[in-house]
């Protein structure tokens, strides 16, 4: 009996070892899809993003990861070039302001959708009118302005609003031009799954939850876009995205975790790319709260927080301290005259005492969980720094959906950590969020409101920028916010590809992307 057991045990161990050794060999040889991408003649770029597109109809959404995919199929009239700081034509060849209410746009001649439909003025009218009833975040404000599109001839349209609105062409960067014939044929639901546009790529397949595969359009009217295929993979977990980049399963990734920054930076085959984002981070004061209504208290809070330390220690240098305004340097309307409140805890204490601040009563500061880079660490650190000058802060982190609902209900008071992002590179959104009419506006300053009202209808760019400068100066002087920083968006790519432009508005631009030479 004993002998039999010994033999069995030995056999078991030998068998187990053999299976263990053979399994990886068998599997590794059966993995051509994983390893053989380089050998094929088709040039492919694979990009890993955290979120899958919900739809490919980008008239219905402005989510960056969705725009990156569908933006290769559907194109707008114009787009913003962050390198030159100017609008450039895409489907529009020229555009000009006729008067305060009207823009005239000349379309690029000879452009066709990939199904063969010609691009013309009637088609643009159809596309923009469809956009006005869509769920895109810009749709309702343009609908409220009664934006109308009038075809002048085959390749010219006029865009008219019922009131002066300076951002018609900037908003047009977010309006994809969809083909009327194809949409009429297939309907909205099918279009969301299988769109057709004028862009450089067409949809080959969309495997739900896994990938979207796009292939180069033979009939594309423009230049650039060297890759034959673009594959967008869904990789929700940040650590897995980094791993997929390391193994070569993807060539580029977005939303790199700070924890992985050094790993990527230390890998000779990979580059981490930090891009200053259009998102400004700050603590919003409820200026009507009696404990914060004295400007000296708000100034003291600004002096009490060491913003440089937050950026260097918690963001590992991946951010830029805001210079006393919620507007990044790449944004039109940035005020070059302003400076950040210097870190000076002694001055902070002195200001608080002068203002008769009640040190015994704790203040609640709301924060988010995982919405912004290192958000929980940042709110805890800010609370700690305020604690150093005697201000007691109770931090309440909230799940993003709950945070948003309470933000809109106006119950995140007296302090909340928040990031405001602008999809278009103009300071208006970043400033107007602090006006009293805005849903989260807690600055409650009538002078500020008046300036922003005027800016909202000032067409002439220099005059509008002057108004922005006045507004940001007032916001800084009155310490309407606890100014923190602009965070960097971190991307990474391997050395197999070059020329990808990672933009401040979450966009991954592949126009110059090509296999590495």
């Amino acid at each position, binding site marked *: 009996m004993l002998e039999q057991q010994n033999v069995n045990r030995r056999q078991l161990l030998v068998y187990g070892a053999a299976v263990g050794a053979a399994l990886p060999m068998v599997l590794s040889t059966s993995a051509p899809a994983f390893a053989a991408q380089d050998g094929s003649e088709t040039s492919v770029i694979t990009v890993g993003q955290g979120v899958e597109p919900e739809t490919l109809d980008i008239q219905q959404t402005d989510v960056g990861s969705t725009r990156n995919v569908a933006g290769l199929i559907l194109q707008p009239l114009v787009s913003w070039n962050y390198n030159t700081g100017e609008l450039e034509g895409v489907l529009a060849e020229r555009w000009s302001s006729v008067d305060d209410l009207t823009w005239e746009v000349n379309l690029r001649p000879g452009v066709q959708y990939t199904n063969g439909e010609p691009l013309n003025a009637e088609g643009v009218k159809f596309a923009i009118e469809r956009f006005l009833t869509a769920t895109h975040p810009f749709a309702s404000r343009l609908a409220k302005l009664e934006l109308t599109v009038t075809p002048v001839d085959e390749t010219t349209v006029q865009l008219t609003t019922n009131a002066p609105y300076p951002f018609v062409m900037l908003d047009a960067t977010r309006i994809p031009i969809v083909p009327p014939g194809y949409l009429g044929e297939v309907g909205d639901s099918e279009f969301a799954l299988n769109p057709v546009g004028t862009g450089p790529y067409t949809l080959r397949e969309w495997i739900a939850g896994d990938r979207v595969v796009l292939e180069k359009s033979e009939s594309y009217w423009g230049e650039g876009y060297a890759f034959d295929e673009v594959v967008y993979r869904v990789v929700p977990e940040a650590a897995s995205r980094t791993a997929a980049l390391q193994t070569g399963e993807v060539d580029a990734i977005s939303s790199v975790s700070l924890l992985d920054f050094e790993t990527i930076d230390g890998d000779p085959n990979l580059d981490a790319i930090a891009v200053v984002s259009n998102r400004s981070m700050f603590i919003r004061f409820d200026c009507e709260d009696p404990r914060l209504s004295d400007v000296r208290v708000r100034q003291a809070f600004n002096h009490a927080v060491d913003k440089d330390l937050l950026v260097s220690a918690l963001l590992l240098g991946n951010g830029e301290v805001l210079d006393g305004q919620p507007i990044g340097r790449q944004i039109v309307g940035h005020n070059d005259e302003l400076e950040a409140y210097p870190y000076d805890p002694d001055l902070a204490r002195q200001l608080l005492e002068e203002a008769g601040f009640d040190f015994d009563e704790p203040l609640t500061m709301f924060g988010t969980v995982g919405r912004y880079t290192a958000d929980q660490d940042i709110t805890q650190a800010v609370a700690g720094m305020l604690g150093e000058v005697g201000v007691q802060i109770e931090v309440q982190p909230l799940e993003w959906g709950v945070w948003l*609902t309470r933000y809109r209900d106006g119950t995140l008071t007296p302090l909340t950590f928040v990031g405001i992002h602008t999809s278009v590179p103009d300071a208006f959104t970043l400033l107007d969020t602090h006006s009293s009419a805005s849903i989260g506006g807690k600055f409650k300053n009538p002078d500020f409101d008046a300036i922003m009202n005027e800016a909202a209808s000032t067409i002439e760019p220099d005059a509008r920028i002057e108004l922005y400068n006045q507004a940001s100066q007032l916001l800084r002087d009155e310490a309407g916010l606890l100014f923190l920083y602009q965070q960097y968006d971190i991307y990474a790519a391997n050395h197999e590809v070059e020329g990808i432009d990672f933009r401040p508005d979450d966009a991954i631009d592949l126009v110059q992307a090509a296999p590495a030479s």
Partner: protein
Amino acid sequence: MQAFIIRRLIQAVFVLLGASIVSFALLHLAGNPVDLILPMDATAEERDAMMHQLGYDRPLIQQYADYMRGLVRGDFGESVRSRQPAMQLVLERLPATLELAAVAMAISIVFAFPAGIAAAIWRGSIVDRGLMVLTLIGQSVPVFFLGLVFILVFGVRLRWFPVAGRGGLEHLILPALSLGMYSMARTARLVRSGMLEVLHSDYITTARAKGLSEQLVVVRHALKNALVPIITILGLDIATLLGGAIITETIFSWPGLGQLIIYSVSTRDFPIVQAAVFVIACTYIFVNFFVDILYAIVNPRVRLM
């Protein structure tokens, strides 16, 4: 048997009703999808307009009644975000989850039974102790940690397996192994304790005394009787695996139900979550039903009533 099936079907209706009420109430208490769709600077007017457009401004009872009316017709509504039929989106993801769960369960059973039997036969030996330490680790290590370790070791360092997505067999191994690890460890321990109990019973001694081979004694006589409690646990494990291995699917970018659920909960895409809960509840009901029948087959003393 017929009475058993009818009673189970009636119970199933109540279970599904309960699941729908609980998921509906919890989701609606947690907020609404409109706040997550609109930009942060949207006005109260725009919010109200979208709430009305999507029907979230109606009383909760009315929303539930409309939901139930649709459900009776097999209509789970449309995804708030993608505007595609919710059940279609859920069913699209089901094959990936089934595949992962099946392989995880297969790995679990294939390793757990021999390990449990070996540990029982050689109780107290180095094999037993080694296996029990391994099963303890398997039960204790959280799946997210195990998944990341697998990715780093077998994906990034050794390059044996891809780390993300669904494809051939090579894509399945790491997620299935990390998903099946807990079940594998628990089953191995159960098999061991079940076998130990049975191996010391009188009829086993009788079987041995009759001169039957050890193999026959262990497999035919002991294992079959040790199976009864294990089947129940395995049944529950299968249902849990099918219910969406949320963490595993997220870590390994596996395009299954779990990944869809987590995203839909975070975006408050109620119709998708409700459709997914319905599918998961059905899975539990079906698996429990199947386990009961299997129970009767394995142990004739059990009568289905």
